[in-house]
């Protein structure tokens, strides 16, 4: 069984998106596991990873999401597994999911050292499975160079088929290739791809936001697959909001307190409003929510205040859903055009 382990130096580097792109671009049959989850969803007394669920949905996998992740929290993992236990669990999972598939994609933890203390770091996974390892690096250009050279200089890949690095979310690819790529090549690092930044991939869906915030959907449930690109905090008056350019940005999410009927009505009337989050557990009158229902504008209710809600949304990592066929198509295109797939996956 062939396997490709995708790791990263930092969280939110784009591992899941890369795997989706590779899976689509290669067109092969594949399995997917994510032994160490980082986007926990707790439903019906089971824990599963959001990415894992996403993959099973996108690719119609028959495996249950909770069966392709071993766990999340250090305390639980150390309680349940010693080194041999962890290794055996991963191997069993890989066999279950990857047998009879052309390729098993394995997504590592959020960064290179995550899971080390309970034997599930990305390097451990690569050693257990004997597959190919690629490291995804993103961020500011100089930071990328530092990380790549760090990998080359200090990471021991003994027993691991390390294929190289893929640079992700690069704002200016031409500039990067001219200025920074030579430095990395000079250091002897195999750069398998430079993927440009795509704003469309930074959107998040309301469905995911609802789960992330543990919010209640109080209106517009049909619109939960709407994607959000901008956030507007409705704290000031409606007049101020109207004169603020951000209020008129497309795909905007308005965050405001539930007793701000004026702001809510203004938001529902504005064509750029994709969704609304109402805070402080204050439910507006039913006739106002009815307007959201009529326009299929999803409205989420959270108990926390406006500031805390905005803060949490700010720290959220944008993810796609199975319904986002355009974004999935875009990932495939980005991989096909910018990654040396053959060098990555051959052998």
């Amino acid at each position, binding site marked *: 069984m062939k396997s490709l382990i995708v790791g990263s130096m930092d969280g939110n580097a784009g591992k899941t998106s890369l795997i989706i792109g590779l899976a689509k671009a290669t067109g092969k049959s594949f399995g997917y596991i994510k032994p160490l989850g980082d986007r*926990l969803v*707790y439903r019906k*007394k089971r824990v599963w990873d959001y990415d894992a669920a996403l993959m099973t949905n996108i690719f119609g996998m028959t495996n249950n999401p909770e069966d392709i992740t071993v766990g*999340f929290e250090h*305390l*639980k993992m150390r309680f349940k597994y010693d080194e041999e236990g962890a290794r055996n669990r991963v191997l069993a999972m890989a066999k279950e999911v990857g047998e009879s598939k052309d390729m098993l994609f394995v997504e590592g933890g959020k960064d290179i050292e995550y899971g080390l203390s309970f034997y599930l770091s990305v390097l451990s996974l690569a050693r257990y499975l004997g597959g190919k390892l690629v490291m995804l690096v993103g961020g500011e250009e100089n930071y990328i160079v530092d990380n790549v050279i760090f990998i080359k200089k200090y990471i021991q890949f003994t027993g691991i088929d390390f294929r190289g690095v893929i640079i992700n979310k690069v704002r200016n690819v031409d500039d990067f290739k001219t200025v920074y790529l030579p430095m990395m090549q000079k250091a002897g690092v195999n750069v398998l791809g430079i993927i440009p930044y795509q704003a469309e991939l930074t959107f998040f869906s309301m469905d995911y936001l609802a789960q992330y915030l543990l919010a209640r959907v109080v209106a517009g449930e049909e619109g939960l697959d709407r994607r959000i690109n901008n956030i507007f905090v409705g704290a000031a008056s409606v007049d101020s909001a109207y004169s603020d350019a951000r209020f008129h940005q497309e795909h905007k999410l308005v965050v405001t307190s539930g007793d701000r009927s004026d702001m809510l009505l203004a938001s529902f009337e504005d064509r750029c409003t994709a969704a609304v989050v109402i805070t402080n557990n204050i439910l507006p009158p039913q006739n106002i929510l009815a307007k959201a229902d009529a326009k299929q504008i999803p409205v989420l209710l959270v*108990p926390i205040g406006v500031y805390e809600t905005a803060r949490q949304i700010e720290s959220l990592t944008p993810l796609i859903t199975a319904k986002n066929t355009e974004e999935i198509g875009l990932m495939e295109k980005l991989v096909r055009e910018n990654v040396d797939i053959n060098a990555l996956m051959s052998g």
Partner: protein
Amino acid sequence: MQDIKYLFEPRSVAVVGASSKVGKLGHTVVDNLVSSRYRGKIYPVNPAGGEILGIPVFHDINSIPGEIDLAVIIIPAAAVFDAVRGCADKGARFAAIISSGFSEIGNSGEERKIVDYARAHNMRVLGPNIIGIYSSAAPMNATFGPGDIQAGNVAIVTQSGALGVAMIGKTRVENIGLSAIVSLGNKADMDEVEILNYLAADSNTKVIMMYIEGVTHGESLVDVLRKTTKIKPVVVVKSGRSKRGAMAAASHTGSLAGVDKVFDDIARQCGVTRAEGIQEALEWCKYLASIPEPQGDDAVIITNGGGIGVLTADACEKYDINLYDNLPDMKKIFADVVPVYGSAKNPIDITGQATAENYLTAINAALGNKHIDSILCLGCESGVFEPDRFAIQAEQLFQAGKVSKPLIFSFVGGAAVEDTIQRLKIQGIPIFNDVLIAVSCLGAVYYNHRQKNEPPAIYENVEIDEAAIKDVIDAARRDGRRSLFSYEARSIMRAVGIATPAGNIAHTPEEAVGYAQDIGYPVVMKVVSRDIVHKSDAGGVALDIDNKEEVTDAYEAILANCRRFNPEARIEGIEVSKQVKHGIETIVGARRDLSFGPIVMFGLGGIYVEVMKDIEFRAFPLSKGEAYRMISEIKSYPLLLGVRGESRRDIDALADAVVRVGTVLKRFHDISDIEINPLVAYEHGEGVSAVDVRILLSGKEVNA
């Protein structure tokens, strides 16, 4: 300590700010004293001296020979302190300060200065910002309102000066005699508590009416109301029901009204009759003072119209008036007056053919029957009914002293009927042109009768483990916390004697699994963190955990969710406790209300409590009997009795829990709020379980 008797029956009254100019308030007060035939000494005081209405005016207080029992002060605010000082130094017992311009406009400092000085010199202050005081016992009208107050046996205590003046005029028109009018104003010193204590014992007063905007010393007020309503009715009109009303009331006298629901429930607990408005209150007071008390619960309605009879029957249900329903008996009683086409079923329909004589026959039959305890007599104007004849017969009936049970009339019709109503009303005969008011009057009579005859509440001494409770509080205080952890709160419940599910705090998944196995599945797991109050909102609760695998998954999920919810939250651990079996979820709470002191709450609980708001409040102390009644007053009470084949719940255990929770709050001033939600009620005999308990400590440590 001054004897309040000298406020109501002063032997001498000084009027500081008296004026010889007609139309000035200082002149009106002196004039009213004289015209009310006040028998004591009147000392007008004005630096100009002279004479007012033939009475010599003193230049200052010190010039007054002899003692002053009551000083009425009616001068500009800036001069009041000096006047109070003069009166206090002179040894005056009471000062009634009519002058305004104090805390009601934000000038609290000057007001405090006045009261402090007065108290230091053993003088009590009524007001400021009042209309004065009237007392029929003296007799004395030391107000600036109308002069011709009719003496009687209704006492009015009002927080509104303007309403007080208006009610003087209104009572005159309505022919209601007054034993006292006391205007409280800003309540800087004396408040309704002391006044009520006096009026409760006053033999001239049969009914007390109160207009309240805000309550300050609620605990004492509750205590005195409970005692007073056992002696005589207290009718209250309280403003501030609506938010607007509350705001307006706040600006009117600088007082803040408490939550109206709390007031309403506590008013009922104290046996107070609460009227919607002034007119209703005055009607009730008038007739509560004169209508005989019923000897039993059974009322009859006598009517010449079916429609008005049904309206009245509906209203009787609203006002909890029981209608006598022994049909065979009523057929016999009213055989002489109900025609074949009438009805002897309550309401007794003597038909539109009934004359004044027919009415009298029916009324006499009802008066003479031992099974009938009260009578509502209604009528619609008809071709055969003669209002004049009826009026004469009604007058004769009352003048002959034959009305030994409550008898209230309500007639509807044209000018002749209205004239009859006015004629009888002026003579104090209870008659109305609106059937609802008539019924509400009888309702007030019955309400007072019932609560007056209730056995006194017995307050049991509840045994609780005070040392254990103190330990928990002390530990939280040392930790610098006001909010107790749920396991601490539950340990207090156990110390109080309220059952809670067994549980332990786990700090690792291993401990969690161990505790779950010890306790037995299913278990519930909840985060323990001082920074996460609403655990469900943070994803910090997992229910129905059935095995080891689920324990570890739940442990993991709770930690991850809570860290995401509040990355800075200090997580002390995860509590593993026994999942209780299903029952009816109730809520029991206690807190220190700003107005009323310790109050308890009971209602339908669970996550929808803030939506359903099916709750009742009571002031503490509370007897178990009162707790039972409180529980029975929630709308969802039938659920506790058992519906659709379900068994009755352990209401005894619920009542016991309410009393115990109140006891903890009462004894531990360190605790400001207790809430058990849910307190699950099981079947009768199986008790209750406090599943989720929140306890808040007060802002600063207070010795119990």
